[in-house]
């Protein structure tokens, strides 16, 4: 096991990693920018090193400074957290070249999954479903119809050279295809000077469902079920839950074991998340995140597995020590991301937190780096806390989250707590009936 880990991050995830290290008996080194010298992650670590000025490019993204900090503190591993350098293959390479362990996958796996096209090809090759469609352009209406018949209606006709919705037509049934094809071809020709089209399955109201995986360096791979992260605003997740209200145990096991086989085939190590769109019982790969995710706690709550600890353990070469059949799912969990933002305009609201009191009691977890008197700097992400609740049922979680958010006192900065309370009072959300566009519809008054 490592003796000393440098945590190349800030905020709640740096605090999270620090906790996991201390619980493993590992010493920690925090790195921080000048503006973060009083930040919680720097206070809690055994040692801390100032690595640069406030802008992230000069500090938390400053590879030489982070490597030098690891050198002068004699750390033996580096945990990148999420964001910043966590999916930077060059950073992972440099870390390893300098003799430190990188707590994450190999640089090669980071590189593959960082390239959307390679990622999709790779995953399809190892048996993961992607959005079905034609392989490249379809020459004729007949060819398009053949593809559509195979993948099922509705389909989307898209200009190969297109973008911005031009040359794009939705086809809901065979009868519409002929006219849609000629219209789209004409539009594409007019707009891009290229009338060639391809066919893709249309996902109308998909959910975002992701599978958490965990692999050691000895070929053992398990999945820890799914998280439903469909509640998004501008592609930012707002609230996550596990299990998904849309999946049953059989579907979970089917997609989970498929992902496990793929990850084992790839020889991937560490934690990772395979993200899917899910509609009408089918999964379609979007991307893979090769790092710990913001929403990992909901999985921890229902499995009892400390994902960050496991990530550190397997990076040190330790075997998982358990198999898929040992993974038990217990109850339900929901996470609300609390951002320092106006809950209606979403305008970021940095500043001093003048009052701070976290909710407590049974089934409530708060992951945060905020304390009373802390100044939320304007330079970084606006997420300042995560409230995670666990309960025997989804309804228990909804009630528990409501009372927790009502207990949570944050004064001095505006937060998105009122937005979450609004979600919790919404009947569609209470029924689990939502998709990736639902929140935007709600916010625009359309849901």
């Amino acid at each position: 096991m490592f003796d000393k880990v440098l945590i190349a991050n800030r905020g709640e995830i740096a605090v999270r990693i620090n906790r996991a290290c201390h619980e493993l008996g590992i010493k920690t080194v925090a790195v921080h920018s000048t503006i973060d010298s009083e930040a919680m992650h720097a206070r809690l670590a055994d040692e801390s090193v100032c690595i640069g000025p406030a802008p992230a490019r000069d500090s938390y993204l400053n590879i030489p400074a982070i490597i030098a900090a690891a050198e002068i503190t004699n750390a033996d591993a580096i945990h990148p957290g999420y964001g910043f350098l966590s999916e930077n293959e060059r950073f992972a390479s440099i870390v390893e070249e300098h003799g430190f362990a990188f707590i994450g996958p190999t640089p090669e796996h980071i590189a593959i999954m960082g390239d959307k096209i390679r990622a999709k090809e790779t995953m399809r090759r190892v048996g993961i479903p992607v959005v079905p469609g034609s392989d490249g352009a379809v020459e004729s209406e007949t060819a398009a119809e053949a593809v559509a018949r195979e993948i099922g209606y509705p389909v989307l006709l898209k200009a190969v050279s297109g973008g911005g919705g031009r040359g794009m037509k939705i086809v809901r049934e065979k009868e519409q295809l002929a006219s849609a094809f000629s219209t789209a071809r004409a539009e594409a020709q007019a707009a891009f000077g290229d009338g060639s089209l391809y066919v893709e399955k249309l996902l109308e109201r998909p959910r975002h469902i992701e599978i958490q995986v965990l692999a050691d360096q000895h070929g053992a791979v398990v999945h820890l079920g799914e998280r439903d992260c469909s509640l998004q605003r501008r592609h930012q997740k707002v609230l996550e839950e596990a299990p998904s209200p849309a999946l049953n145990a059989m579907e979970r096991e089917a997609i989970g074991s498929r992902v496990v086989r793929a990850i084992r085939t790839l020889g991937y190590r560490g934690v990772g998340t395979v993200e899917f769109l899910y509609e009408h019982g089918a999964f379609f790969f979007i991307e893979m995140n090769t790092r710990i995710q913001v929403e990992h706690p909901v999985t921890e709550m229902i499995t009892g597995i400390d994902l960050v600890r496991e990530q550190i353990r397997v990076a040190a070469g330790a075997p998982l020590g358990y198999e898929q059949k040992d993974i038990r799912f217990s109850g339900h969990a929901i996470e609300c991301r609390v951002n320092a933002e106006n809950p209606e305009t979403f305008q970021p609201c940095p500043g001093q937190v003048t009052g701070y009191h976290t909710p407590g009691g049974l089934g409530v977890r708060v992951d945060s780096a905020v304390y009373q008197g802390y100044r939320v700097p304007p330079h970084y992400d606006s997420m300042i806390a995560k409230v995670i609740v666990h309960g025997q049922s989804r309804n228990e979680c909804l009630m528990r989250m409501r009372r927790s958010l009502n207990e949570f006192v944050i004064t001095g900065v505006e937060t998105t707590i009122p937005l979450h309370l609004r979600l919790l009072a919404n009947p569609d959300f209470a029924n689990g009936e939502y998709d990736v566009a639902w929140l935007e519809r709600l916010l625009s008054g359309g849901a």
Partner: protein
Amino acid sequence: MPVTLSADKRETAERPDPDLDLIRELARILSETGLSEIEIGEGDRRIRVARQLAFAQIAAPGVAMPGPSSLPAAGQAAPSLDASHPGAVASPMVGAVYTAPEPGAPPFVKVGDQVSEGQTLLIIEAMKTMNPIRAPRAGRVTRILVENEAPVEYGEVLLIIE
């Protein structure tokens, strides 16, 4: 809770005996009512009973919360005391300091040396790379705050040129 009952009686020639029963009675009222003090004056006679409550640590620390002050090693805050010094030369990077070009060689500069702008003062090694730290202006080296091979943070003051 420790209770001290102090009765300070101002006795005069005319009233040689303090009224002990009254004091007892006042003490009883004190504990009955939870008061901390009762004072009675009449003419030149004055009786005061008080209960010093051990927990009365009213002295709140002027500032609100010091944050998690009791926490383990906190940041050896980059800007040290000397950072405000107008002649301070702060480290532009994290790394290990070398005060001489090679082991055994004389140092680049000593306290009292006159240096010219651009002159190498120290070397900082980061990621196996040697980075010369040059004088930002001409002047005299009045203090050197780092030792050979010491680790330095970003912003840490290395030396002072006046």
